[in-house]
């Protein structure tokens, strides 16, 4: 079977209710329904998830590696951008 007709899909799995869907990996499938089915078989057969999203990889837009300097570097040296000067009560938990 020719693989050229099978697009690549990115798979996002929600590990339990209340948590975010996280990227699990990618796979090939002929359409969305089979992509979900394949994702179930490839990524969630050991109770890893309760919900699956798939999106065709071509619909994901990404930053370019060559843009890393201008995109991300300037953030580190301006400490006032980080709200690290507040005392957070323990009850708040992880922020």
């Amino acid at each position, binding site marked *: *079977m020719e*693989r050229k007709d*099978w697009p690549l899909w990115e798979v996002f799995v929600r590990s339990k209710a209340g948590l975010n869907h996280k990227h699990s990996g990618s*796979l*090939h*499938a*002929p*359409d969305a*329904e*089979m992509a979900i*089915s*394949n994702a*179930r*078989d*490839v990524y969630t*057969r050991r109770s890893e998830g309760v919900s699956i999203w798939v999106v065709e990889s071509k619909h994901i837009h990404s930053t370019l590696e060559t843009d890393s300097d201008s995109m991300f570097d300037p953030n580190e040296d301006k400490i006032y951008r980080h709200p690290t000067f507040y005392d957070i009560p323990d009850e708040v938990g992880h922020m």
Partner: protein
Amino acid sequence: MEKKKALFNYLLRLADNAAILGHKLSEWCGHGPELEEDIAIINTALDLLGHARSIYTYAGEVEGKGRDEDDIAFLRIEREYKNALICELPNGHYGDTIARQFLFDQFNYLVFSELVNSTDETVSAIAAKAIKEIRYHLRRSTEWTLRLGDGTEESHNRIQESFNDVWSYTGDLFVEDESDGLIVSAGIGPDLKIIRPIWREKVKAVLTEATLTTPEDGWMHSGSKEGRHTEHMGHLLSELQYMQRAYPECEW
């Protein structure tokens, strides 16, 4: 015939269906048409193996001769296996495998849906666990039937031929004997005469949606319930049983 013997026969048929079809599917391991499909079809094989294990174990208890799942699975002669003939057919090309799988999944789903309400508590508990997996098997083989049937001209023609070829083995699924009669009257399992028209209707609906023609019922193979198998069964068992025959009681 006593009820215990009928139940043992009935359990063997259920377990042998799962074990033998699971074994056939396992031959795809490493040979699937796509990596993802390879994993998916082997998941089905593993599910079926799981069903077979729990049913063999219960069959051993019902029989009361101290046989465990392995004794029953590996150490019988061909005539003592009672799986439906469709389960032992060669994998062929992927369309052949899908056609065989879809027709069996639809049957298995209808039977296990009823076994969930069995008067036998162990059967009902095993069925309640298995039905979730069987529902998924049916969903998957249905999706593939739709895609191959309503796909390209070549995929359409090839899977139509697969359904035509395998059709004469479907009658064997619905043959009833004395054990079935006792099982039905005891409320342990469903009446296959009731299942058959529902099965045909469901199969026809999917094949029609897949732009395929449902074959007409003609002459049908039969014999599985007396242990009369196709020419393929001996070869299958020689592989399946090799380790236990060559190294009796070996474990790993």
